[in-house]
C-alpha cells in the first residue's frame, strides 16, 4: 500500500518538475525566438512567434557579428580563459605545495595573505589595479593573464593547500631519497595526485574568467581587445538605445558555447562546484 502511494507521489513530483524545468529554460527560448525577429517586433511583441512580417532570418546575426566584432571577441575570450586557467593551475599548485611543505614565517604569511585576498571585493582594488596594469603594459590578452593569476591566486592556492595537507609525506620522501629533485618529485608524483582538485579549480576559475566583465574592461585596451561580455555591453551604446535584434542574436551566440561546454563536462562541473564549496 505505502509503496503504491509513494510511486503515485513520485509521478506527480516528476510532472511538477517537468513543468518547472520548461518554465526555467523559457527565458533562453524567448531570446532565441526573438533573435530571428525584426528589431521593432522584439520590443513591441517580445512573446510572439516570428511571422512572415517580423521574420528576418539571420540578419540580426550578421549585423551583430559585424557591429561588435563577435568573432574576435570570442577568440580573445577563449585565449584569455584558456591561458589564465592553465597558468593559474600550474603556478598556484606549485606555490601551494611549496608553502605547505616548507614551514617558515614567510610561507605562513603568504598563506594568510592568499586567504585574506579571497574576501576583498574587486571594487577595492579596481582603480589602482587598472593603473598599475597600465604602467606595466599588461593591457593586452597576454598581460591580463598575469593580472588574473595575481587576483585569482587566493582561491586557487587555498584549495590546493587544503588538498596537499592530505597527501602523505612518505611517498614524496621516498622519491627524494631515490634521487629525484623537488621539481621531478613534484611533476611525477605530487601533481598527478592533485588532479581532482586541479579540475575543480580549473572549472571555478574558467567560469569566472570567461564571464568576467569589469576586470578586463578596466585592464584591457578595449579599443583593440574586447571580450564577449564587453562586446555585448558595448551594444548598449549611448543613452538607452539598444539594437535589440543584434543583442538577441549575440546573446544566443554567447550562450551556445557555454551549453556545449556544459553538456560535455557536466559531471566535472558539478563535482567541481561541490568540491570547491566544501573547501572554500
Amino acid at each position, binding site marked *: 500500500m505505502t509503496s503504491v502511494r509513494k510511486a503515485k507521489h513520485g509521478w506527480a513530483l516528476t510532472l511538477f518538475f517537468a513543468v518547472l524545468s520548461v518554465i526555467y529554460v523559457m527565458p533562453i527560448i524567448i531570446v532565441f525566438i526573438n533573435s530571428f525577429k525584426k528589431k521593432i517586433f522584439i520590443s513591441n511583441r*517580445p512573446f510572439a512567434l516570428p511571422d512572415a512580417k517580423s521574420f528576418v532570418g539571420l540578419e540580426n546575426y550578421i549585423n551583430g557579428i559585424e557591429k561588435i566584432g563577435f568573432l574576435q571577441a570570442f577568440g580573445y575570450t577563449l585565449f584569455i580563459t584558456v591561458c589564465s586557467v592553465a597558468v593559474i593551475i600550474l603556478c598556484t599548485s606549485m606555490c601551494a605545495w611549496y608553502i605547505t611543505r616548507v614551514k617558515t614565517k614567510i610561507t605562513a604569511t603568504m598563506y594568510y595573505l592568499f586567504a585574506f585576498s579571497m574576501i576583498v571585493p574587486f571594487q577595492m582594488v579596481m582603480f589602482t589595479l587598472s593603473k598599475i596594469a597600465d604602467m606595466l603594459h599588461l593591457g593586452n590578452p597576454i598581460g591580463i593573464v598575469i593580472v588574473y593569476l595575481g587576483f585569482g591566486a587566493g582561491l586557487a592556492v587555498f584549495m590546493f593547500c587544503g588538498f596537499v595537507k592530505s597527501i602523505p609525506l612518505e611517498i614524496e620522501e621516498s622519491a627524494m631519497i631515490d634521487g629525484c629533485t623537488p621539481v621531478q618529485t613534484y611533476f611525477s608524483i605530487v601533481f598527478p595526485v592533485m588532479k581532482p582538485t586541479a579540475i575543480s579549480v580549473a572549472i571555478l576559475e574558467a567560469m569566472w574568467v570567461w564571464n568576467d566583465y569589469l576586470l578586463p574592461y578596466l585592464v584591457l585596451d578595449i579599443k583593440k581587445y574586447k571580450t564577449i561580455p564587453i562586446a555585448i*555591453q558595448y551594444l548598449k551604446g549611448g543613452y538607452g538605445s539598444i539594437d535589440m535584434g543584434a543583442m538577441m542574436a549575440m546573446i544566443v551566440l554567447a550562450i551556445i558555447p557555454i551549453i556545449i561546454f556544459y553538456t560535455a563536462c557536466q559531471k566535472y562541473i558539478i563535482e567541481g562546484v561541490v568540491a570547491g564549496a566544501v573547501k572554500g
Partner: protein
Amino acid sequence: MEKAIKKYFPIFALPTFVAFTIGFIIPFILGVYLSFCEFTTVTDAKFVGFKNYIRIWGDATFVHALWYTALFTVVSVITINALAFTVAMLLTKGIKGTNIFRTVFFMPNLIGGIILGYIWQLIFNGFLLQFDRTLTFNSAYGFWGLIILMNWQQIGYMMIIYIAGIQNIPGELIEAAKIDGANNRQLLRHVTLPMVMPSITICTFLTLTNSFKLYDQNLALTAGEPSNKSEMLALNIYNTFYTRNGWEGVGQAKAVIFFLLVALIAIVQLKLTTKKEVQA
C-alpha cells in the same frame, strides 16, 4: 626534505607571488592609502586625512545604495536558500528525471552576469509592456527584477551543494529516528537540518557575498535607472570613480568601506553558522 625543497622558492612560489604582488598586494595597499588622498591619477595624490570619508556621508546616492543593497541581500539570501533547499529535498527522493532537472536548474549559473541582465531585461520589459511601463519606471521594479534574476541564476548552484549535504547524511540516522517515531517535520528539524548545517554555512556565505558584491547584473538590467535609484553599492562606487570628476578619492574611500562591510559580514556569518554545526 624540507631543506631540499626550501631553496627552490624561485621556481615554485615566486611566479605566483610576483603576480599576486602586482595583482593584489600593491593595489590593495595603494588603495587604502589613496582613500586618504585627493587625486585624479596615482601619481598626483595629495594627503587630505579623513576628508573623503566625511564627504561620503554627504552623498545621498551612497546612503541610498547602501540600504538598497542591504535590503536586496537579505531578500535574495532568504529566497535563494529557501527555494534551493526545498528543491534539493525534493530531488533527493529518487524520482524519475532527477538528473535532467538538476542539469536544467544548474545551467543558468554558467551564464555571465551581463548576458543574464539583458536576457531578463527583455522578459521583464515584455511583461511590463502590457501595463505601459518599463523596468526603469520605478526602482521597485528593478529591485524585484534583480531578485528574480538572482534566484534564477543561483538556485541551481546552491541546490547542488545542498544535495551533496543531504546525501551525506547516514541512512541509519534517519532509520533510527523513524523507529523512534519521528514524523516528517521532526525528522527535518532535528535530523536533516542539523546534519546539513555545513552546507547551509557555505550557501549563506556564498549568497551573502554574491548579492552584496553584485555588479554585472545590476549594470545590465537597469544600470541604476531611474536616476540612481536602483543602483547597488558596487555600481555606485564605479560611478563615483569614473563618472564624477574630483570624486576619485571619495570613490576609493567608499571602496574601503565596502571592503570592510564585506569582511565584517563574512566573518560574522561564518562565526554564527559554524557554531551550529554538529558532528554525526
